[in-house]
């Protein structure tokens, strides 16, 4: 029987890849956003003790207005250039997809009444949210992934509809994994507060220019983090529409709701590995370990 062995809030600012200087990325940086990068480092150390087969990620940067889509091609190789920050992220990726698990997730989501589609076009460019969160979680790319699109029901209907959709998708994800033989790490690829600065310093990694956009956003970020740390996850789900609206949060993607639902709404706390801002947005790297939480 398959199992979700870990779940993480894994934000995807391209700045983190830029500052890490991996060989796959063309631009080079001097430093930057260390609290978040070291946070990812701590999460990788936590994951090093966990045996898993596949990473399943839900990314806000694969936006689908008709249904939920799943990557369905076994291998992708290409160049990902960030449309917002092309000066920072031009990444040569080479990744494998766990297509059987993707198909199982798609089938379970369909059975749950969701509109779905497998993405079978080999020319497709994998979105940068997926790439960044997966790279920062497992830079060696030794594990295959399943990438799930963000169905934009928050924009098309309401945040409440998004919540229902993502809870259903989370439950379907859990059921599909349990029906498989895979041990899976889930990634919710998103920031918390998400109001950007609209100008960039001449030196992008100049940390003297980096801070939260405004105090209001920071307060919301801290509130959410504290609730996640103390295992008040149903409360997080209940508060999500207000948080998303007030903090202009990237939680409108549904990724965090999906993660919490797939983890069966943890009552144990997540570990906070790092918090930091990136061009004004609030980002936390946090992990739920069901084994340590007693829910395995």
């Amino acid at each position, binding site marked *: 029987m398959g199992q979700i062995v870990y779940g993480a809030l894994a934000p995807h600012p391209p700045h983190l890849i830029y500052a890490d200087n991996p060989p796959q990325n063309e631009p080079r940086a001097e430093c930057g956003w260390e609290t978040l990068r070291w946070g990812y480092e701590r999460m990788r150390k936590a994951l090093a003790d966990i045996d898993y087969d596949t990473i399943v990620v839900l990314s806000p940067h*694969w*936006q*689908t*207005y*008709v*249904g939920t*889509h799943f990557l369905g091609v076994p291998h992708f190789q290409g*160049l*990902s*250039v960030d*449309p*917002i*920050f*092309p*000066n920072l992220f*031009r990444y040569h990726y080479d990744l494998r997809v766990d297509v059987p698990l993707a198909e199982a997730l798609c089938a379970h989501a369909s059975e749950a009444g969701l*509109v779905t*589609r497998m*993405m*079978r*076009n080999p*020319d*497709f*460019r994998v*979105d940068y949210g997926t790439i960044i969160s997966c790279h920062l979680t497992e830079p060696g790319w030794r594990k295959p992934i399943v990438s799930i*699109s963000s169905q*934009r*029901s928050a*924009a*098309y209907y309401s945040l409440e509809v998004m919540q229902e959709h993502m809870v259903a998708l989370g439950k379907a994800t859990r059921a599909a994994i349990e029906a498989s033989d895979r041990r899976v790490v889930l990634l919710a690829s998103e920031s918390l507060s998400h*109001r*950007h600065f*609209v*100008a*960039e310093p001449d030196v992008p990694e100049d940390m003297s220019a980096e801070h939260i956009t*405004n105090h209001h956003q920071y307060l919301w970020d801290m509130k959410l983090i504290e609730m996640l740390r103390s295992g008040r996850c149903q409360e997080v789900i209940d508060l999500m529409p207000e948080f998303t609206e007030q903090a*202009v949060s990237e939680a409108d993607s549904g990724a965090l709701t999906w993660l919490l639902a797939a983890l069966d709404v943890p009552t144990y706390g997540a570990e906070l590995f790092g918090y930091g801002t990136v061009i004004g947005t609030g980002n936390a790297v946090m992990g739920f370990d069901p084994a340590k939480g007693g829910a395995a």
Partner: protein
Amino acid sequence: MSEERVAGIVGGLIVPGLPHPLLCPDASDNYRALADGFAAARAQLEALDPDLLIVYSTMWPSIIGHQVVSRPAPEWVHVDELFHHLGSMPYRFRIDEPFAHELVGCAKQRGLSARAIDYHGFPIDTGSVVALKLLNGDNRWPASILSSNVYADRAETVVFGKSVADAVARTGKRAALIVVSTLSNRLFTDWVEPADDRVHSLKDEEWNRKMLEFLGQGRLEDTAQLSREVHRQIRVPKVVNFKPMWFLSAAMGAHNDYDGTVHAYGALHGTGAAVVGLVPSEEGIGLKEFDEDDVEVFRGDRDVLA
């Protein structure tokens, strides 16, 4: 330059950006009509005889100010993130690099943040790819592709449009503007057969028809002044406002003296899709009622959060 070839913005087009007219034009009469509308717009461009096509795509969002493609010959095989099953879109475009830099300079002079984008593999958006392949598939004219800033509201968008007019004037070119945007933008959230495709609701349909009535009469600024109401009535609020008409009227001239032609109108997965041409005319509707400021220089958002 001959006397007949006067420099300036010689015309504008409004076109949809979803890929069906390019990738499956014969899947329905509706898609075929839209593809034929693109062909009619291409003929209109040939008659206008521009030196340059300027594409403002609402499907290319930017955050750090306004971005302009400056890579001379971007080449890629593009796949739409939603309609990937319709096929791939290989392209190689001819970009007017000097104009891109001129426009960036003009935008900065008007207080905007702007930058040129010259990277291999930069993801040119579906709307720009569809528009350029259907209108300029032979790269007869060099093009410039501009982003749409997600946080920009009317003032910033109007100033960006004026920056485009500045750049056209400074370069002495004849330019045609192409705005990539749906009218109503509500997609069906389930799959529909091409033969069953229609505008999502009667309300969307009526507002689309109202906009097309205005545009067909050449009433560009009147349509632009309707933008906030259009946004409230028939736009899924993915961005702060319905901006393309503000951009177009600011760049071409905020008045109603145009000859308008609706080349085609139909539905693309529920959205309102129209191909419209606007050419400056001395016999247009003329004056309009100004409801909002005619901003010249952008002085920041003054800490008003969008």
